[in-house]
């Protein structure tokens, strides 16, 4: 998918000086014509609500007559704190409209690297913490989203706690920051996206195969000890993890219950 940066005409030169040389930067007036001239999907990135609202003035009836083409092929990523009216306008006009708040977005230069990279779905480009649902919704580089409970960001052993009122993304989408607390995007995706987990398990260099190794990884990710399992002796958990015994179905169900997962999920870790 081709990616373009949308800019006001008087800012194109300034963008050229700061963004990677290969970046295609287009003015809003040219966008109206060029976005509909291709049959390939394209992604247009623009920064700032003021830029967008000033661009409204340049759009005439011709632009709105092309909206069928826009909805077929054109995706738009707006980095701004946009009100609901703007969101509706964008969602109605484009195939996909992703709106990311400026505070939590990757810097534009890093964002473009991720969008044009090999595995954009493995990076996080923005997101929003919602204290009401106790979740953070993360936008990935392939523009899909994933919802993650805040409870997964447990304090570290050295006492660093997440500050959910201060959320940002860093390291080209590889790090989520909650104040001084940092979480690996890989760890979060591995825990909450079964397809990502499957892909990463294939990439393990020295694969620890078997149910026991998967159980051990999941147990430690959840911060549990072998003694934390109800109705099962810690020595039994140790034997299962080392692959010395094959657990019965009823034992697996008890283990899954203590881990808070479906029994079938354990072996995917």
């Amino acid at each position: 998918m081709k990616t373009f940066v949308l800019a006001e005409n008087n800012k194109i030169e300034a963008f050229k000086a700061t963004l990677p040389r290969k970046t295609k930067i287009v003015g809003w007036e040219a966008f109206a014509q060029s976005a509909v001239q291709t049959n390939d999907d394209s992604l247009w990135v623009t920064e700032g609500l003021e830029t967008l609202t000033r661009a409204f003035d340049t759009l005439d009836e011709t632009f709105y007559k092309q909206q069928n083409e826009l909805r077929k092929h054109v995706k738009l990523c707006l980095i701004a704190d946009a009100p609901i009216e703007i969101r509706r306008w964008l969602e109605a006009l484009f195939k996909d409209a992703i709106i990311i708040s400026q505070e939590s977005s990757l810097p534009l230069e890093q964002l473009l690297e991720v969008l044009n990279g090999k595995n954009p779905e493995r990076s996080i480009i923005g997101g929003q913490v919602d204290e009401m649902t106790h979740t953070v919704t993360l936008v990935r580089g392939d523009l899909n989203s994933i919802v993650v409970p805040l409870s997964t960001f447990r304090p570290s052993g050295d006492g660093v706690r997440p500050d959910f009122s201060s959320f940002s993304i860093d390291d080209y989408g590889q790090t989520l920051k909650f104040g001084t607390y940092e979480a690996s995007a890989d760890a979060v995706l591995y825990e909450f996206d079964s397809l990502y987990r499957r892909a990463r398990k294939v990439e393990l260099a020295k694969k620890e195969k078997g149910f026991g190794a998967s159980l051990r990884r999941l147990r430690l990710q959840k911060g549990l000890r072998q003694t934390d399992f109800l109705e099962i002796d810690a020595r039994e958990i140790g034997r299962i993890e080392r692959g010395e015994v094959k657990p019965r179905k009823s034992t697996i169900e008890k283990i899954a219950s203590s881990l808070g997962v479906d029994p079938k999920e354990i072996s995917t870790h």
Partner: protein
Amino acid sequence: MPYNLDLSDELKNSGWKVKIREKERAEPPHVSVMKKQETWRWGLREQAFLDKKPPAWLVPKELIEHLQANLEKLIAEWDSKYPHNPVNSEGEK
């Protein structure tokens, strides 16, 4: 805050970072070697890369030698952040 291993100016200026963050994949213990959108997990028990991708040959030899030279410090930092899964215990038996 995360642990950041101090690197030479040359490595830093090339965009390399080595981190242990508050939330990593807990097992096996590792440091994250990062450059742009790529991350390599370097195992503290294995002293080797844990994943086939991205390819290990992309990481400068100088950086890997620096990891090995600072192994004790890295282990101490991991153990401090992840006391339930320390490097040298190999977990509960």
